């Protein structure tokens, strides 16, 4: 059972027990000392009192009309010691304010989630800085902590050898496949992962020191370094820089890898489906049948064609979405080349499918041979509209 003191917090009366009163007194005295040279001292103290009053309100209720010492201890811990803005950590000299002493942390922030220790991830990326073609060799070199030139020499030799020994350019094809599948390291975090370096503040600073000293002091040898130096000079002229360098990677590594691996298949499926639809439409127009399905006589031809096209769209739409998602996943920091390559691949697949169908599928060849006839009938049908 403690004595109760009634205090005035910014114009409102609050009841606190005597221990709580002592702690509040100490806190506000310490604050007054910290702010003694501050022209807004009185106003800040009033704000602090108001904040304390608001917090006290939380502890009071119908069953509790007195703020106790533990309550005050908690609310003063939330408030934090008054930092007059000098930027120095609060010292523990004040005997009268034990809370401030124990919270002698430098600065304002109480970080809640201290970052987990250096998590080293190591993945294979393509690295375009200092790369000759697609950055495959540079990426592999970074992963293995080797020199890119060594990797290039090995790859080049193997690429020539396998053509003469095995008749199939295995290594050249492998390079192209890897170029398509392995994602490019866009952000700094990915660069760190590409060589298995820890991505934390100290690592970044060490790396920056190494690179900065080298690039500032020496001449710029590779094309990439010259490009970088040129970009830096541009920016020094206060041209607003694009955000490209700073954004976090939008897609996880696994997603990008699978996007790269699956996209040719998706494109092939989409193209195949399109040509199947065309053949079906021609067949329908020719004799109102698709394989064994005959259009009932009371449904006009145009309705049948429309239905076919609608069915095609319903089936093709998920494929189209998947391909588009693949473009986004693969593009990373660049904007367009993935889509262009994919469309070119689509054209190549079309040619392949058409040639294959014409030479190996009987029904198709007949259909193609009947095309002029179909065209004739179509022209006559349109004539019925030109009266």
């Amino acid at each position, binding site marked *: 059972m403690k004595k109760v003191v009634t205090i005035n917090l910014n114009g409102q009366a609050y009841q606190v027990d005597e221990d709580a009163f002592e702690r509040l007194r100490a806190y506000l005295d310490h604050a007054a000392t910290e702010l003694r040279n501050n022209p807004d001292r009185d106003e800040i103290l009033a704000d602090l009192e108001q904040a304390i009053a608001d917090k006290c309100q939380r502890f009071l209720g119908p069953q509790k009309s007195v703020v106790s010492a533990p309550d005050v201890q908690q609310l003063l811990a939330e408030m934090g010691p008054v930092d007059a803005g000098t930027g120095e950590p609060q010292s523990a000299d004040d005997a009268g304010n034990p809370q401030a002493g124990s919270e002698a942390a430098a600065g304002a*922030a109480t970080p809640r989630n201290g*970052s987990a220790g250096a998590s080293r991830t190591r993945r294979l990326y393509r690295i375009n800085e200092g790369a000759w073609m697609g950055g495959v060799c540079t990426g592999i070199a970074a992963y293995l902590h080797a020199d890119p030139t060594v990797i290039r020499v090995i790859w080049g030799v193997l690429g020539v050898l396998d053509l003469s020994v095995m008749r199939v350019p295995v290594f050249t094809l492998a390079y192209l496949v890897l170029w398509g599948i392995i994602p490019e390291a866009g952000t700094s975090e990915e660069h760190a992962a590409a060589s298995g370096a820890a991505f934390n503040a100290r690592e970044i600073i060490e790396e920056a020191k190494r690179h900065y000293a080298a690039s500032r002091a020496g001449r710029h040898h590779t094309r990439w370094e010259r490009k970088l130096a040129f970009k830096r000079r541009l920016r020094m002229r206060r041209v607003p820089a694009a955000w490209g360098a700073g954004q976090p990677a939008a897609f996880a590594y696994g997603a990008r890898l699978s996007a790269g691996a699956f996209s040719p298949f998706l494109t092939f499926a989409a193209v195949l489906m399109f040509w199947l639809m065309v053949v079906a439409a021609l067949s329908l127009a020719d004799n109102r049948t698709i394989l064994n399905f005959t259009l009932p006589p009371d449904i006009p031809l145009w309705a049948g064609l429309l239905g076919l096209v609608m069915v095609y769209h319903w089936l093709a739409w998920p494929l189209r979405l998947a391909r588009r998602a693949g473009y986004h996943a693969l593009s990373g920091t660049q904007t367009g080349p993935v889509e262009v390559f994919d469309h070119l691949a689509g054209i190549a697949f079309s040619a392949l499918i058409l040639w294959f169908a014409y030479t190996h599928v009987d029904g198709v060849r007949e259909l193609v041979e009947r095309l002029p006839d179909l065209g004739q009938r179509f022209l006559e049908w349109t004539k019925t509209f030109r009266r």
Partner: protein
Amino acid sequence: MSIADKFSAIRKGLLEFLILRIVAADKVYVADMLQKLNDTEFATQEGTLYPLLSKMRRDNLLDYEWQESDAGPPRKYYRLTAKGRSQLAELNDYWKDINATVNELGR
């Protein structure tokens, strides 16, 4: 020292910039500012915020008006001044530059 401690000086330095950004978005009460910062790594306390706000007000970056509220005493409602807005624009540009430099140096 953990990573958070190493960056504590940077967080403290950025606090004024962040407050300018928060007030620029919308007029705010002090409690709202604390709320917004609370969810981030820049969680701050009244003991630090009040002196900083009054310093910014003396520098004519912020201004406040008293807003009556039915539940309780009137509260300070902070907004950005013209000088505050222009300084925020400069800080935004500077921040973009630093950010780009840091990202680039890592390669």
